[in-house]
């Protein structure tokens, strides 16, 4: 069985993981998150500089943790898109250099396919059909996944504007909470009343796209409320506002995810991404899945956020599907939609040519 080394550098996390036959052997992660904090969001150049310093040490740390050496690596998988262009280049350059020097095949992987694969490392292979809700700082997507690497992924919907995590971060700023805002809002919400402030449930009207997301209006609604309160000279009920906002996001996300399962006759929902850490998103998803007879799968947090193991997991599936490797001129794709888990080379194309 082939050991696949996965490299992820699409945003602010340098991640490296080693996977063999669906099993995570070891991984390493280095984050530049703290360096972005005072800018209120990820600064691409800062992220890229951090990747340069971190990528080789992460490879070695992941190997040490797996008890393996580079000679044991039989294939390399790397996120070649989507993500920050300047950050993607770092991981792709490293992946090519390792693949060429070790003389092993290289696979370019779609970042979101990685998120969908993450849960397989904890809970085993995905069923024949599943709905995957990806909720992170950069993405809010509903995917219909059949065989993750052999079939095209159906991108059911995306956010029209802000990603859910981004909305958490922006609302936290409005409320004067720390960055990243998700954990901060989650924490203060525990002491708040989720029904204290009436906030909209975006895109849930009869004429709205059934599975669509939009969070920018919700953020503005919070900002208006805050300004109105301040104008009226009232002290901000931060916990109540945070809890109400969190409730609105959790309600919208889970409502649409369950609807996607119903519409596509799917009985497994996988929730991944940084926002899957949110306590209310989790409890509401569990509650609603149980009521609808849907199996809910949420990977542990370290696999929910960006990491290298999830990219290695896709690489492992590609190796086992005998997918054709990428060439060493593999390009980066900063804004490519998810159709195929493997970029630059669709497995279907390969199978057809066999």
């Amino acid at each position, binding site marked *: 069985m082939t050991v696949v080394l996965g490299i992820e550098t699409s945003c602010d996390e340098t991640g490296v993981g080693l996977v063999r036959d669906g099993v995570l052997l070891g991984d390493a992660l280095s984050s530049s998150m703290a360096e972005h904090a005072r800018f209120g969001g990820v*600064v691409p150049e800062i992220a*890229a500089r951090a990747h*340069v310093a971190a990528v*080789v040490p992460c490879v070695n740390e992941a190997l040490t943790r797996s008890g393996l050496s580079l000679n044991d690596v039989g294939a390399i998988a790397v996120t070649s898109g989507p993500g920050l262009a300047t950050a993607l280049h770092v991981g792709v*350059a490293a992946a090519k250099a390792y693949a060429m020097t070790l003389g092993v095949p290289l696979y370019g992987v779609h970042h979101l396919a990685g998120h969908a694969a993450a849960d397989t490392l904890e809970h085993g292979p995905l069923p024949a059909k599943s709905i995957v809700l990806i909720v992170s700082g950069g993405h809010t997507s509903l995917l219909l996944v059949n065989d993750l690497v052999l079939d095209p992924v159906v991108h059911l919907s995306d956010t029209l504007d802000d990603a859910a995590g981004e909305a958490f971060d922006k609302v936290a700023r409005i409320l004067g909470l720390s960055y990243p805002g998700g954990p901060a809002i989650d924490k203060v919400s525990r002491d708040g009343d989720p029904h204290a402030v009436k906030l909209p449930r975006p895109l849930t009207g009869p004429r709205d796209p059934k599975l669509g997301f939009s969070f920018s209006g919700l953020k503005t609604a919070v900002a*208006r409320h805050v300004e109105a309160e301040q104008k009226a000279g009232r002290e901000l009920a931060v916990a109540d506002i945070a809890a109400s906002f969190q409730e609105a996001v959790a309600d919208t996300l889970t409502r649409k995810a369950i609807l996607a399962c119903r519409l596509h006759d799917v009985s497994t929902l996988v929730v991944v991404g940084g926002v899957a850490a949110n306590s209310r998103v989790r409890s509401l998803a569990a509650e609603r899945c149980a009521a609808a007879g849907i199996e809910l799968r949420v990977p542990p947090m370290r696999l929910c956020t960006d990491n290298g193991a999830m990219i290695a997991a896709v690489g492992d599936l590609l190796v086992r599907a005998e997918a054709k490797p990428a060439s060493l001129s593999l*390009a980066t794709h900063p804004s490519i939609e998810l159709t195929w888990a493997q970029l630059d080379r669709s497995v279907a194309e390969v199978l057809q040519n066999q």
Partner: protein
Amino acid sequence: MLVLALDTSTPAVVVGIIDTDQESPLAERFVINPRGHGELLTPLIQEIVAEAGLTMSRLDAVVCGTGPGPFTSLRVGMVTGASIADALGKPVYPVCSLDAIGVAAAEVDDLLVITDARRKELYWARYHRGVRVAGPAVGKPEDVRVPGVVLAGHVASLYAEPWELPDRGIEYPTTATLVAAAGDALLTGAEPGEMVPLYLRKPDAVEPGARKSVIQA
């Protein structure tokens, strides 16, 4: 000793393999393509390894230009160099890319190497007989200009006339000059320095100001 040298600090991708006992490289490539470094570099290395009749595992060391240069391409080269060295279990020696031009004009008493830093600025360093005496730094052309020097570097030809200075005609690092710039450290197998890109500029980023009101609209 078989050395792989590479530099991506300029619009050119420079890669070559040299046997340190010989004058000329066993194989090298020079391709000008400012946006193509990421896609070109590794395949070019694979080509020259084959052309030299070698395998990667025969290499004894890597020499890598560390800039200054445009960030994205510079990073591609440096990460590639570092990863190859790591995969080989061999050392990688960082060299300031401007030094690989400075050493090529070791007969010149006062050499000013200039390369394009974009944003109407120049990266520069000054050399006395091949040895760096000032820089590397980045600045506006009018501040970089000094009387009485000889120019080199890939934008020297653009400034020679307006500045009324001679152009030594050395534009880019080469396999041989990169290895020469690595100097004794490489030849004696000394502990290499750290692979830190010479950005010479802080990342562009502004701290957010006060929130704008959303009510006025």
